[in-house]
């Protein structure tokens, strides 16, 4: 599932963009080091292939509903992790722009969710080790299913976390998880069978391909795993740092969730930043099974160091009102709000239509050239 802009907060969105861009830079660097020239056109057309293949539907046996290909694992198996991540990122970018899949801020999250896990976890840690000692169709199937399962579960869970930390949705953690994980389990099974099917097909028609490309570009399990884990640690620390920096200046983002998690609007003294956050999450996750993040008690107004944004949020006079506390909205305010909205919309439409009318009238003929196929 694709993350959506409307459910994101700037903090989470930008953080994941940082992670994604960092990974793109890393993969680019790695590829430049021993670039196989042939990869450039291959990556391009393979990306186009995945894109086109994703548009084709098929019926899922037993359910009759239609399914579509994801393709991340096929890419990784054929191209190796670095190239595959770049291809996956490029396909998602085009989808975000042309198909409005999710949005441009969420693109950072989506590339992460759908790219990192298959390329740097599913393939090197699961698929490759299984298939390393002799490839036969059964092994390929098992390896595909497992690798994809892990990748999709991690991806789905990331969506949950991203939504949670953004604080725009009221979905409680537990419910969301129970929603996402099973769906992605089902998706994973189908995707696993298809991936194995395609790999076996390619193996049968072009056996040289799998050997020549995959072997040279793949990660060798022993050394690289440590590097991956290290990278994740670094990313986690940076993320936490950025996120908590944002938290101190942007109350609607993380502090909201800290509030929810911790039950108090402010963190206890002496505990700020990552440590408190981690501790809070830890305490909460201990109660996982039947818990929701939400606490319905009213919260006191939060000190938000004179945030003008807060003032504009509800047209409140109180300069330090907290958008997350239940505001005392008088009937008066809501009427002016509605009136103002109507008038604002009216203004916007007037401007829009006005410009259109002027353009049509001004006999300025648009460029005569047709951009369609000659």
């Amino acid at each position: 599932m694709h993350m959506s802009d409307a459910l994101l907060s700037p903090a989470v969105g930008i953080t994941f963009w940082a992670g994604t861009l960092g990974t793109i830079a890393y993969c680019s660097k790695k590829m430049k080091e021993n670039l196989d020239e042939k990869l450039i056109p291959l990556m391009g057309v393979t990306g186009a292939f995945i894109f086109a293949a994703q548009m084709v539907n098929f019926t899922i046996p037993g359910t009759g509903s239609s399914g579509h290909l994801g393709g991340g694992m096929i890419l990784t198996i054929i191209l190796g992790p670095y190239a595959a991540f770049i291809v996956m990122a490029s396909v998602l970018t085009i989808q975000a722009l042309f198909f409005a899949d999710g949005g441009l801020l969420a693109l950072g999250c989506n590339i992460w969710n759908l790219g990192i896990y298959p390329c740097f976890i599913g393939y090197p840690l699961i698929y490759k080790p299984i298939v390393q000692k002799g490839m036969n169709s059964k092994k390929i199937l098992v390896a595909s299913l497992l690798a994809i399962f892990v990748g999709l579960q991690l991806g789905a869970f990331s969506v949950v976390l991203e939504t949670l930390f953004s604080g725009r949705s009221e979905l409680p953690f537990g419910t969301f998880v129970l929603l996402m994980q099973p769906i992605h389990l089902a998706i994973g099974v189908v995707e696993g069978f298809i991936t194995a099917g395609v790999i076996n097909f390619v193996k049968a028609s072009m056996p040289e391909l799998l050997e020549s490309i995959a072997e040279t570009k793949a990660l060798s399990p022993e050394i690289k795993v440590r590097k991956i884990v290290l990278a994740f640690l670094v990313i986690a620390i940076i993320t936490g740092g950025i996120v908590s920096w944002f938290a101190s200046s942007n109350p609607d983002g993380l502090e909201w969730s800290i509030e929810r998690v911790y039950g108090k609007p402010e963190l206890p003294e002496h505990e700020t930043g990552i440590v408190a956050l981690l501790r809070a999450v830890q305490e909460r996750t201990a109660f996982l099974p039947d818990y929701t993040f939400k606490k319905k008690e009213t919260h006191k107004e939060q000190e938000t160091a004179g945030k003008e944004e807060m003032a504009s949020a509800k047209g409140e006079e109180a300069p330090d009102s907290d958008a997350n506390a239940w505001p005392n909205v008088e009937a008066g305010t809501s009427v002016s709000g509605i009136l103002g909205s109507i008038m604002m919309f009216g203004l916007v439409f007037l401007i829009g239509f006005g410009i259109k009318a002027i353009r049509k009238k001004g006999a300025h003929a648009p460029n005569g050239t047709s951009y369609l196929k000659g």
Partner: protein
Amino acid sequence: MSHHIIDFKDVVFRYPDGTEALKGVSFRITHGESVGIVGANGAGKSTLLLQMNGYILPSSGLINIGDLELTKKSRQEIRKKVGVVFQNPDDQLFMPTVYDDVAFGPLNLGMTAERVVDRVNSALQTVGCFDLREKPPHHLSGGQKRAVAIATVLAMEPDILVMDEPSSDLDPKSRRYLIRLLRGFKHTKIIASHDLDFILEVCERCLVIRDGRIVADGPVSDILTKQSLLEENNLELPLSLQKTRMQ
């Protein structure tokens, strides 16, 4: 001055699985000649063309292009002299705009920005596609793509032009335009095609390939009028030479 000679001496080519696509091919093409290559499907036309700029190298025998013998080392240099236009223009137009595609070659040759601009503009004007320069290739028609593909090669100012099925998928008007264009070129031209009428109009000489060997080599007026020779090679007389059957 002009050493632009293509010289094949007993060239044999064997694919990795052992099939011999070329079984000892010899011929010589001199500067300015326009030569058509015809034959049945699978006779070896494409393999022959792939050798022309060294994408594949002969398993045995010698190929000389210009002053250079074709080897792994020399093929980079040879590619500056031999421009190949492929059968499918979509394989050849891989850049985001027409302008980028035509500039690709000159930029790789390391030219300065102004010289690149000159080359691109003149190549586009030669094929009549200057107005299309900012368009992406997928907005072009088949004929336009074909013309632009030729421009991408012309921009490198090769001495020798090799073309694989240039008239396929063209509507009559574009085809006619292409014929006129090619007749105006002074380059050495080597054209592989099933379109015998096309060869008749554009080429002076014709090579017939069968089973990896050259079975006929002579002026176009000789070769393309011999009905029995053509029919032995899964071909027919050019349509323009056939008596009308619609009686």
